C-alpha cells in the first residue's frame, strides 16, 4: 500500500512545480484537468458526487452510506459538518484525508485530485490517536520530522515546542499520553496536526469526549490558532453550539443510509466570535433553532423537494430566510 505512495508524491510535486505540464502527466486525470482549467472559479476543495458503499456479505448492492455529495470549501474557510451518528461523517473525512476510497465521485484539492494520504492535509482523529510510548513532545516531533526530514534535531524540537506552547502545553512536554488528561491529549493531537503546517485541517469530533468546560477552553485555543494561521478547516461535530461558534458554513447531513446534504447553512454571526457574548447577538437563536430543528426533525424526515439539486445543495441564511419566508 505504502510502497505505491512514493511515486504519487513525486508526481504531485512535479505537477505543482509546473502547472502547464500537469495535464500531460499520467497522474493528472480528466478530473484534475477540469480542476486546473477552471481553477479561477473552483473552490480550494471540491467534492463531486461522492458515494461510499461498504461491501456486505450476501448483498450484491448494499445501500450506500451516502451518495451524491457535492460541496466546496474556500481557502481559509471553516466548514462544519453536522449530522447524526452513523450518517457517514467519519467516512467522508477519511476520504478527504485519503485514508479511504470513495466508491464513486472524487475530491479535488488545490487543483489536484486527492489520491491517498498526504502531508497537505493534517488530521485530528476522533480518538486522539497519540502513540502512548512517546511523550507529548515526541509525538509532535514525529510529525515534524516527517514533514521536514532534513531538519536538525534542534530545529525539529523547537518547532514542536512552539506548537505545543500554542495549545498551552509547554509545561507537559515530557509527559506520556497516559499521564495527560483527555483534554490535554486532544490538544497534543491538535498541535501535531498544526505542526506540519498543512494546506488544510481535517478534524473529526476533536472535542467529543471532553467536558463542557475543557471543551470551551480548547475551542477558544482553536479559534485563536485558526485565525492566526488562516487555516482552511473541515470539522465534524455533533454539537450545534460548537458549529455556531466555529464555522463559516455548516453542512447539514440527513440520516443514513443514503445520507445526503440537505442544505448548507451560512453562519451570519460576525467574527471574531466570543462564546460569552455570542448568544446576545440577535441572529444566534434563529440560527440555533434552525440547526436544532434540523437535527431533531428534518434530518430524519428529509424529502428532496422538486428544486432540490444534489449538485447545488441550497445555501441557507437562517437569519434572513426565516424573515422572508
Amino acid at each position, binding site marked *: 500500500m*505504502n*510502497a505505491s*505512495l*512514493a511515486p504519487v*508524491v513525486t508526481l504531485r510535486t512535479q505537477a505543482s512545480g509546473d502547472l502547464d505540464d500537469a495535464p500531460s502527466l499520467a497522474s493528472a486525470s480528466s478530473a484534475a484537468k477540469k480542476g486546473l482549467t477552471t481553477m479561477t472559479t473552483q473552490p480550494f476543495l471540491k467534492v463531486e458526487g461522492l458515494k461510499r458503499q461498504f461491501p456486505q456479505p450476501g448483498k450484491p448492492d448494499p445501500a450506500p452510506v451516502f451518495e451524491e455529495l457535492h460541496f466546496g470549501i474556500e481557502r481559509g474557510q471553516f466548514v462544519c459538518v453536522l449530522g447524526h451518528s452513523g450518517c457517514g461523517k467519519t467516512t467522508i473525512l477519511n476520504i478527504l*484525508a*485519503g*485514508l479511504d476510497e470513495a466508491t464513486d465521485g472524487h475530491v479535488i484539492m488545490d487543483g489536484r485530485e486527492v489520491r*491517498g*494520504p*498526504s*502531508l497537505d*492535509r*493534517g*488530521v485530528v*482523529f476522533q*480518538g486522539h*490517536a497519540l*502513540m*502512548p*510510548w*512517546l511523550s507529548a513532545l515526541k509525538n509532535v516531533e*514525529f*510529525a515534524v520530522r*516527517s*514533514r521536514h526530514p532534513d531538519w536538525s534535531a534542534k530545529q525539529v524540537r523547537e518547532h514542536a515546542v512552539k506548537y505545543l506552547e500554542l495549545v498551552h502545553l509547554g509545561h507537559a512536554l515530557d509527559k*506520556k*499520553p*497516559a499521564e495527560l488528561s483527555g483534554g490535554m491529549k486532544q490538544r497534543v493531537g491538535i498541535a501535531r496536526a498544526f505542526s*506540519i503546517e498543512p494546506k488544510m485541517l481535517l478534524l473529526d469530533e476533536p472535542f467529543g469526549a471532553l467536558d463542557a468546560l475543557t471543551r470551551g477552553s480548547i475551542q477558544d485555543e482553536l479559534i485563536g490558532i485558526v485565525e492566526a494561521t488562516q487555516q482552511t478547516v473541515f470539522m465534524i461535530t455533533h454539537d450545534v453550539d460548537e458549529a455556531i461558534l466555529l464555522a463559516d458554513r455548516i453542512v447539514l447531513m440527513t440520516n443514513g443510509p443514503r445520507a445526503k446534504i440537505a442544505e448548507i447553512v451560512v453562519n451570519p454571526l460576525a467574527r471574531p466570535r466570543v462564546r460569552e457574548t455570542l448568544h446576545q447577538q440577535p441572529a444566534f437563536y434563529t440560527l440555533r433553532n434552525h440547526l436544532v430543528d434540523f437535527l431533531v426533525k428534518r434530518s430524519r424526515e428529509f424529502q428532496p423537494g422538486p428544486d432540490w439539486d444534489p449538485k447545488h445543495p441550497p445555501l441557507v441564511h437562517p437569519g434572513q430566510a426565516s424573515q422572508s419566508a
Partner: protein
Amino acid sequence: MKKAWLAPLLSALFFALFVGVWYLATSAPSGGGAAPDMDPEYAALMGAQAQAGGQSAMPGPGEVAAKIWEHLSDPFYDRGTNDKGLGIQISYSIARVLGGYLLAALVAIPLGFVIGMSPLVYKALDPFIQILKPISPLAWMPLALYTIKDSGISAIFVIFICSLWPMLVNTAFGVASVRREWLNVARTLEVSPMRKAFLVILPAAAPTILTGMRISIGIAWLVIVAAEMLVGGTGIGYFVWNEWNNLSITNIITAILLIGLVGMLLDHILAWIARAISWRE
C-alpha cells in the same frame, strides 16, 4: 503494603519447615529398620552405602549445604571430561540456550513481522506453523544429530526450534493488532515504510513480542536439561545425568537448585526488559 514483612517471614517459615521435615526424614533415627526389609537386589543396585546399613541414600540438608558450599568455593575446576565444576557446566548450558534463543529471535521476529503485516502470508504459513508448533523439541533431536552430526550444535538447534514458535506467533499477533489509528497517523504523515516499521509498528507490538520472548526463554531453559541428558558431553543436564550414574544424589540436588535459580534469573531479566519497553494508555 502495611505488612510488607509478612510474606517474607512466611516464606522463611515454610523454608525452615521444609528443611526440618527433610532433616527428620533423612536422618533415619531407627537405624537398621529399613535394611532388613529391603529387597537384596534393590539394595545391591543402590550400592554399597545402602548395603552397609540403615543410612538413607537420600542426603540430608546438612550434606547438601556442605556440597553447595564446596561447589560455590570452586565452581570452575576442570578435571577431565566427566569431572568439571558446576560453574563450567552451567555456563555451557547458558551458552547453548542463548545461542539457540538468539538465533530463533533473529528468525522469528522479522518473519513474524511479515506474517503480521500480510494476511496472505499469514494464511499461507498458518498450516505449517500449526503442525510444527506442537512437536516436542526433543523429537527433532535424532534428525538434528543425523543431519548436523555434531551433538553440541544439535542441542542448539533443539533450543532454536523450541524458542521459535512463541516468538513467531506473538510477533505476528502483535504486529497484526497494531491499532489502525496509529497506522493512519503514519499514513497521513507520509511516513516511509522503514520508519513506520521501526517507529510505529515495532514499539506498538513490543510488549506482545516480549511476552513471546519470555515464554520462549522459559521453554528453552526447560528443554536444555533434557537435551543435554540426551547428547551428553557437557552442560548442566549432562551433569545431572552423570551424577545419577555416580549415584551422587547430593550433587543432583545441588544441580537442581542451580537450574531453578538460573531459570528464575533468565525470566527476571526478560521481565525487566518487558517492563522497560511496555507502555500504558
